[in-house]
């Protein structure tokens, strides 16, 4: 236990980096995910194609491959950014594909009559998306979004494999010094479980309050 307590500062720093990774990449992923979803449901064939290609590409590539490509490859073509920023951008782009997929299935679950009613009222494409379709779609995808958030939390650990000193990497470093793996890795695991439990709690609350029974 002392191995864990002696290195609380390192763990704390790792936890902060992990939380930063989670918050920044989730925010980015939501924004990109919304844009991709809007493209995929739009009447413009080219945009639909781009959206589909985006989702297909990112869902079929391992995140670690993308991270390695960005961290070690991009400097070769003169694109240099800090490690943390690179990791956030890559994780955000990767998870955006999953968010887009969840949102699209949410949009798909809405009755056609809703869209027809919106058009009958004279709402434009953007207006009916914003005022009629998305609010309903969002309510049906709270649980999948929660799952994506938890998957994203787990995936931020991969940033540790390319040099970002997040919670996982910090645990590993402390273990290399102290060689007391059980308390150290259990402690790190508990921190992740705690984050996931918080997400589960929030999405559960939101779901009970917002979900629509059809």
């Amino acid at each position: 236990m002392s191995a864990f307590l002696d290195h609380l500062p390192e763990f704390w720093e790792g936890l902060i980096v992990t939380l930063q990774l989670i918050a920044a990449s989730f925010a980015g992923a939501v924004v990109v995910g919304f844009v991709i979803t809007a493209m995929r449901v739009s009447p413009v064939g080219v945009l639909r194609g781009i959206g589909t290609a985006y989702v297909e590409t990112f869902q079929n590539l391992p995140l670690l491959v993308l991270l390695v490509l960005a961290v070690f490859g991009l400097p070769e073509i003169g694109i240099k950014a800090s490690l943390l920023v690179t990791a956030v951008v890559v994780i955000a782009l990767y998870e955006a594909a999953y968010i887009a997929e969840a949102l699209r299935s949410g949009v798909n679950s809405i009755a056609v009559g809703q869209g027809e009613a919106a058009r009958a009222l004279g709402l434009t494409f953007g207006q009916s998306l914003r005022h009629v379709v998305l609010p309903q779609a969002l309510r049906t995808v709270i649980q999948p979004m929660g799952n994506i958030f938890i998957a994203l939390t787990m995936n931020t650990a991969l940033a540790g494999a390319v040099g970002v000193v997040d919670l996982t990497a910090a645990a590993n470093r402390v273990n290399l010094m102290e060689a007391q793996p059980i308390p150290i890795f259990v402690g790190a695991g508990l921190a992740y479980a705690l984050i996931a439990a918080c997400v589960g709690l929030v999405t559960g609350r939101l779901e009970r309050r917002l979900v629509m029974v059809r």
Partner: protein
Amino acid sequence: MSSLLFDEPGPRARRRIRIATVVGAVAVLGLLALAVRQFAANGQLDADRWQPYATWPMWRYLLNGLWSTALAAVVSAALSMAAGLALALGRLSRRRWVRVPAATYVEVVRTVPALLLVYVVLFALPRYGLDLPLFWKLVVPLSVSNAAAFAEIFRAGIGSIERGQSEAGLAVGLTYGRTMRLIVLPQAARRVLPSIVSQSVGLLKDTSLGFVVSYAELLYSGKVLATYNGLLIQTYIVVALTYLVVNASLSKLARVLEARTPQARRPRRRLIRA
């Protein structure tokens, strides 16, 4: 075409769609041009930096890595599916002492990153005298974490089978075990086949953690190759494209299977194309 969000476009909408098409195409081409310029400006487009990937020895090396990837993926898929099925049946058991441990395993493992499990096997177990061979250092943590995911897939599949099916089995005098084995599981297996394939794609992606344990799968092979020939971005792009081709084919298979599952055969109103 028309859908949830728009009707058959009229003349004005068609003009707007044409404009958006041009803008979208120009944006994509612009991004591509920018990328090509960036590559060229840094000398990464030189023929001698790409030529090696048109030669057989390089591909033989990478395909060796792909073979190891497949091996690790298949073995951990088999292990985690078996464990997942046991966990799913355990969670549905009427005996508390079976149900609670199974549920705990699934809930706990789902909230621990696979990389952390890899580190545990890599750095913690050897201290307790359990130093696994490289292959198992990758396969064991992947199986441990994917077992939880498969358990949830199987549980959902079993739950989706109508009650009447197992009631009928029990009514004709089958035991609980035989009802499961002969009636419920075969039907559930067909329903969850697409989810199993897509989870397997996820597992195949997870084998890239071989990068961390130095197991020579595709990504680690790419790392070794890039260190050796100094063609960093070229190597990793080739590796990424290889993953893309393999996984996209498997995902395509999942979609074909999904189109053939019983539920999908019921007519369902598709709202949005593509």
